[in-house]
């Protein structure tokens, strides 16, 4: 989905709060542990988790610290999986408990194909309302394969409880000046791109 989370190349942001911005983090280890517990209990996989974050209302997403995004996603998944109701969570919290927006359909992988190191490839000009790990800034762009990975679960299906298929990803090298002509610092930008997102250039 072309969601608020897909930040790469978005303009208007400011200096990085480096090295650290102090904030109340006393509850964060609890959230991190519960997130792990949900994965270990088999309640959700990593792609379902990531998509639950992406489905947060954009204003909430932008204003929430990292672990509040985790908190919101895990709570949403527990409600969607029938572990607890939204009303019960709010009652226990003693106030509103904002959850993510409802999930829509995923999509199947593309027919198998393969690419070799050094080969020019193009990112397909395709769109989905569901989960994807194709950052919007590479859509339709051409790069060169510099590495090939072992197969990983295809996120666009795995996030939607569909039949799990695995496929390799390709580390594709793009030139920043081709991604954002006349409006970027010169650099080589590498993205791990699932096979299904690519076509021959």
């Amino acid at each position, binding site marked *: 989905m072309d969601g608020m989370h897909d930040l790469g190349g978005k303009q208007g942001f400011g200096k990085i709060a480096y090295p650290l911005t102090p904030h109340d983090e006393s509850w964060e280890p609890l959230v991190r542990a519960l997130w792990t517990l949900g994965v270990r209990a088999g309640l959700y996989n990593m792609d379902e988790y990531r998509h639950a974050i992406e489905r947060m209302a954009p204003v909430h997403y932008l204003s929430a610290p990292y672990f509040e995004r985790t908190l919101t996603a895990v709570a949403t998944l527990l409600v969607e999986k029938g572990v607890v109701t939204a009303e019960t969570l709010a009652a226990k919290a003693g106030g509103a408990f904002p959850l993510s927006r409802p999930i829509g359909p995923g999509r199947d992988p593309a027919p198998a194909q393969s690419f070799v190191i050094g080969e020019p490839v193009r990112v397909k000009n395709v769109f989905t309302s569901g989960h994807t790990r194709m950052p919007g800034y590479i859509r339709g762009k051409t790069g060169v394969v510099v590495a090939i*990975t072992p197969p990983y679960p295809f996120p666009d299906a795995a996030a939607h409880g569909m039949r799990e298929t695995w496929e390799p990803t390709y580390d594709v090298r793009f030139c920043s000046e081709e991604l954002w002509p006349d409006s970027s610092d010169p*650099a080589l930008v590498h993205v791990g791109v699932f096979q299904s997102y690519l076509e021959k250039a």
Partner: protein
Amino acid sequence: MTDDPAPAAARAAALKEAFAEKGLLPDGFVEDFTRHAEENWITRNGAQMVARAWTDEAFRARLLADATAAAGEMGFGLPKHHRHLVALENTPGIHNVIVCTQCSCTAFSIIGAAPDWYKDLDYRARVVRQARTVLAEMGLSLPAATEIRVWDTSADTRYMVLPLQPARTQGWDAEALAAIVTQDAMIGVAEIG
């Protein structure tokens, strides 16, 4: 009518109760997991790998060929969903920097939990497009001739940067070297002085 969210700490406590009431929360899990994470997923793991790569050419070659195996050789594992670790070698003419523009993925069991700034919106939005500017703002001014390579952690591959060894540390042993390797250097936003 406004319906203000409960404080995050209260929502986190509610979530914990929800797990517990379904019998999904083993006794002591939160404390045990937190201790495990804080003791084992630390920057020193990656620092030891870097220091060894600086002092052991054969290990350096193995690290660059298969960082997952090289980490395993030193007793460092990855969570299941971090399926493949890649070490990115800095050279006098090439500087690598890592990011996750869509969330905040890092090889946290190797380089330690991601710092807040890495997870913030500004870094994620800007470093792919304005790498040289962002690095300079963070205190790392690279020579104009240096090629910058940005790596967006968009799949299940996890990256770590193998920084340049400072000239002043030639001849140091691996233990002394590991003590000066920082998380920022393994992310690629700093050099080691």
